[in-house]
């Protein structure tokens, strides 16, 4: 009963957001900001189109590679810095200050190295995602209670058994939290790269639409990306909560 009330309250928030959109639309005019209804109508026509599919596919491919890099490198750094205490102590502040840096500043360097290519966009996306994955993996490993290691020894577990049956499950929820934030930021990085300089992808589609004053298309792409990110986040958050409850 409480769950349904919550769902209802959240629905009310969504409706309020739609109404605010409509009100803003009335305020600034249809050319600058189309209302929700024409946008959704445009969305229904645009999403099945070839042009959308091509650009969405380009973004997805780029995002997939960037995510692979973020997770691979982030987990490797995180595990290493979590296990090797000295590296962790030395590296953590460096990673934190890199994390808070506006990484867009560095995009021209990436462009100078890779040119206007897929690898440049992938690298830039991965630059955003690596740090949270590494930082949270490190903290997950550090936060494993020492009593687990003691129990593993009293149970005469081998090194690999200890890692598989004790350390990995204990650290998993927090690592998944890092993967979730890494997912979000990698997507942001890829989209920023596409918005700044690219000939394909949803990010460049938005910028083109803005320059051609096609507000409906611009909003449509924004809404699609919004929904994609929100759903993916909800899914990862759900997994994270399940893991936390289990522990």
């Amino acid at each position, binding site marked *: 009963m409480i769950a349904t009330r*919550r769902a209802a*309250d*959240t629905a*009310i*928030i969504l409706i309020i957001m739609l109404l605010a959109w409509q009100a*803003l639309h009335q305020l*600034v005019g249809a050319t*600058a*900001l189309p209302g929700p209804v024409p946008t959704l109508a445009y969305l229904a026509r645009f999403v099945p189109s070839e042009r959308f599919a091509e650009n969405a596919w380009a973004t997805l491919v780029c995002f997939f590679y960037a995510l692979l890099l973020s997770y691979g490198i982030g987990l490797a750094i995180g595990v290493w810095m979590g296990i090797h205490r*000295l590296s962790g*102590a*030395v*590296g953590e*502040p*460096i990673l*934190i*200050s890199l994390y*808070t*840096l*506006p*990484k*867009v*500043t*560095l*995009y*021209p*360097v990436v*462009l*100078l*190295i890779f040119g206007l290519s897929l690898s440049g966009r992938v690298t830039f996306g991965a630059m955003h995602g690596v740090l949270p994955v590494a930082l949270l993996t490190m*903290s997950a490993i550090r936060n494993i209670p020492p009593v687990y290691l003691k129990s593993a020894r009293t149970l005469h577990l081998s090194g690999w058994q200890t890692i598989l049956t004790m350390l990995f499950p204990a650290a998993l929820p927090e690592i998944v939290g890092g993967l*979730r934030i890494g*997912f*979000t930021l990698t*997507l*942001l990085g890829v*989209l*920023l790269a596409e*918005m*700044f300089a690219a000939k394909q992808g949803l*990010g460049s589609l*938005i*910028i083109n*639409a*803005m320059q051609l*004053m096609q*507000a409906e298309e*611009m*909003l449509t*792409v*924004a809404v699609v*990306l*919004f929904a994609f*990110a*929100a759903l*993916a*986040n*909800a899914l990862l*958050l759900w997994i994270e909560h399940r893991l936390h409850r289990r522990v």
Partner: protein
Amino acid sequence: MSRVGWIRLAVLAIAIGLLELCCRLGLIDQRVVIPPSEMAVALVRLLISGEANEQIVRTFGIVLLAALISVVAGFALGAVIHALPRVRQSLDPFFATYYAVPIFIFYPVMIVIFGLSAIPIVLMGVATAIVAMIIATLNGLDRVPQVLAKVARVHRMGAIATALRLKLPAAAPHLFTGVKLAVSYAFIGVIASEFILAPAGLGRVISDAYTDFNNRQMYALMLLLIIVATIVNMFLHVVDQRWAERRGIAKP
């Protein structure tokens, strides 16, 4: 400084030295990356010539303004939402999703509505920063121990005195975490917006320098941004940690 601190300094020095060496030896093309020493020289020259001063002041001014608006409005909104549990519950999924959505996709929308001026940039700065402050405020007010309300009544304190003398100081370290996040997020929001499209500002100048192959100017300003952002963020981070330590709050 501790041993770890020295090692960290050495690691950074070696990294910069290696980059310098690679550039000097031609392992890295100077058309791609210029040696760090030349970046520093270019930055000093640029600062002395005063060419970029206007842009520098403009950008840091906008960051400051956006951070200020976010902190003040974020705290006020957080306090109001905290007082209304049902509103808060329904907003929770919204907060949990907010930073998962790349809000930059709405920057072009802002430009279309407000025109190509400083307003959309300030708004993007606020949009990236304010929710962090709201969440930190909610978090801080949640951590105010219930027993403080009883202590206040034993001392026959009114609602305002209780809020100012007990609840605010109790929540203060968490609120500061919000300030720290708001500043660094405002930085990211403003610079990224200027980068993508802006009439002026550091982001725009760097992006122009890139298009004009003016590597010296580009790397000088990049270095400036990185130095300022790092110093500000590290300062806030250290103050935050000190405060948490003194209050015995465990922070990740």
